[in-house]
């Protein structure tokens, strides 16, 4: 329409209010209207949080204190069980080994994901041909659904006709094919390798963008002062990107501690429960043994472990914001 037209429309003359309302009441009404509007806009998000987070977590918590059987499933509440679900589940030897395994799995995953991810991030900070293409290829593991990755790796790690065995045999690194998914020790290593492979892009992308933000003046100054490349890395680059590293570790911890799909698609927790992690064992208790109470109890334990790092994350986030 006509751009020259005044964009502010003059309001029609307001009819004098019959009660001769003072202006204060109008302002009051406007404030109330604003508050209502604000609440209304919050409503969808609030409902989402309520149904997607609060209700399931609360229901899980209630379930973990109940004595559940198939007969109780048709009613919302089952007989109260107190702490017995927690006691029985945590005293179970498979649960205990799953807890320890999850811990070692998480620590080892994060360590290698960081080392490889940081190495790749440093590599991509250099100028070389096809850098951009290589960088986009690194993200590919992220694009695949975890279940698909699991099945692909299961195929690669097969004893008979598995690609990995075939390659290692051909280059004479091994003399007999290895049953990667068939012995407890190897199965754990295989799941670990798969998970590291999956987590590397996350570390690479975050650390790479952090490296881009390191002011070049700092590095140049260090270079002029005669610092070796190693010193520049340890004394300049690492301290500058430390906040990002910390946040990446915290997020990585939360992602790794609840790993589920990879184990299910690779080993289903076997052989002989040797790759059961907390999440897969909780699933097994709930949906294979139909012991919902025990599964819920273990889920609560997992939730508590994940929540332990939440305060750390919030503090780190605040610190890095303050620095920025």
């Amino acid at each position, binding site marked *: 329409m006509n751009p020259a037209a005044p964009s502010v429309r003059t309001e029609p003359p307001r009819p004098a209010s019959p009660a001769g309302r003072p202006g204060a009441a109008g302002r009051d009404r406007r404030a109330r209207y604003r508050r209502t509007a604000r609440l209304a806009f919050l409503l969808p998000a609030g409902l989402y949080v309520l149904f997607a987070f609060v209700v399931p977590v609360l229901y899980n918590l209630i379930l973990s204190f109940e004595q559940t059987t198939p007969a109780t499933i048709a009613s919302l509440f089952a007989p109260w069980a107190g702490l017995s679900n927690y006691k029985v589940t945590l005293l179970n030897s498979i649960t205990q080994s799953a807890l320890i395994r999850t811990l070692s799995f998480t620590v080892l995953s994060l360590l290698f994901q960081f080392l490889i991810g940081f190495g790749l991030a440093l590599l991509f900070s250099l100028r070389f041909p096809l850098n951009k293409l290589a960088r986009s290829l690194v993200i590919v593991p992220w694009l695949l659904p975890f279940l698909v990755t699991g099945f692909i790796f299961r195929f690669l790690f097969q004893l008979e006709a598995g690609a990995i065995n075939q390659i290692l045999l051909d280059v004479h690194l091994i003399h007999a094919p290895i049953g990667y998914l*068939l012995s407890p020790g190897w199965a754990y290593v295989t799941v670990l390798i798969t998970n590291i492979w999956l987590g590397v892009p996350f570390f690479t992308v975050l650390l790479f963008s952090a490296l881009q933000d390191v002011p070049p003046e700092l590095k140049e100054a260090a270079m002029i002062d005669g610092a070796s490349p190693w010193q520049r890395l340890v004394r300049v680059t690492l301290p500058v990107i430390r906040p990002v590293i910390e946040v990446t570790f915290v997020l990585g911890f939360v992602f790794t501690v609840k790993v589920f799909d990879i184990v299910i698609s690779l080993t289903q927790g076997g052989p002989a429960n040797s790759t059961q992690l907390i999440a897969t064992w909780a699933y097994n208790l709930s949906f294979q043994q139909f012991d919902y109470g025990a599964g819920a109890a273990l889920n609560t334990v997992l939730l508590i472990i994940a929540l332990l790092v939440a305060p750390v994350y919030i503090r780190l986030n605040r610190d890095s914001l303050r620095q920025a």
Partner: protein
Amino acid sequence: MRAFTVGKPSRRRARWRLAAAGGVVLALAAAGCSSSGSSGGESSNGKTTITELDYFTSSGGNTALNWYNKKFEQEHPGVTVKRTAVAFANLITKVLQDASAGDMPSLVLLDNPNVAQVAATGQLRAFNDLPGFTTSGYYPGAIKECTYQGKQYCYPIGTNSVGLFYNKAMLKAAGLQPPATWDELAADAKKLTKPPVYGMAFDATADEQSTWQLEPFFWSNGASLTKVDTPSFASALQLWVNMVKDGSASKSVLNWGQSPDLTQQFTQGRAAMMVNGPWIFPDLNAKGWKYNDQYGIVPIPTDKAGQTVIAPLGGETVDMGAGGSTEQQKLAWEWVQGMQQPDVMTHVTSLMYYLPTKPAVTDQVLKGGPEYTVFAKETQTARPRTTEYGANYPKVSQAIWTAIQSAITGTSSVNSALQTAQGTISGVQQVSGG
């Protein structure tokens, strides 16, 4: 451009609009929660809908149910059968969800070890007081697997079990007869092993399939699910462990499911013998493998010659959900009974590659398909898996498959693996099943 301004007079209306928008959101959320709650009943034009839930998403089972539902609709004008098929792994979760919401489908096809469990929710309709109910004419095992706390909750849609499949050419080349005893099985498996061919293959995966495959070995040897740390149980497991240890069976049995893994090993000529069941017939047919030409089937070998083979009874069952209108219940029951008619049973089971559940019907079927003979014979003495533990069978099964995997991986000896399993099983409550 027209600036979007809300005129003063309409401010009150705007607030209402906001409130209305909020209301719509709430209503949508509520609808989202309850959309699964409508189970389809009588509609205005006098038509009745009954719902049916199963896990036959493909192949024979899918064809069979579509055929029978259509036939039923033709015989009952004005009736619609609304069928839902979900993946095998999701069925029990879906059924338990429906049960917890008190909103069961009119008809549900459950795998037989799950019947007791779903019956325990109180959301299945017992058949006993329905008109024309009978248990005569069926295999005893087929009736037992449907019994929970003295009441009949289902009819099996068909039965199956496991036998020993063997590659005829390979046995002939080695000059061997199919094994009948464990010693023969172990010796033959060893002789047939020539890399990359393994003499024997079975399923030792971390799920129900491996327990189900070991059951005929230890049941025929006199062991039971209630007491697994016994010599008769241990020797059955030892047989499996030995075959893996001496290389007659691949260590990959820990990862090979019955179908398609075992079938593939067998048809690719990488396994000379395997434990499997009639549900793989379509796969064998597709490969051009014919009974008595490329392959043969014998009963699962027993420890000593002449012992009776006690195989586990497999197959799905037809169950009715509690609830629904009287009209829907009546129709669901007619649907169930219609499937028990000999001609329907013959057609449905032949499409699914199952055995009929009535000996009289089986005799007719065997005339056309000699490959079923072994399974038909085993069915006469087959045992349901839920007899001792009912709804708690999955826990017992898990204890056993964990022991199988521990022993085969060498994590623990056969005896200590079974002692651990016994420790778990002793803590599982026995529930009267059949």
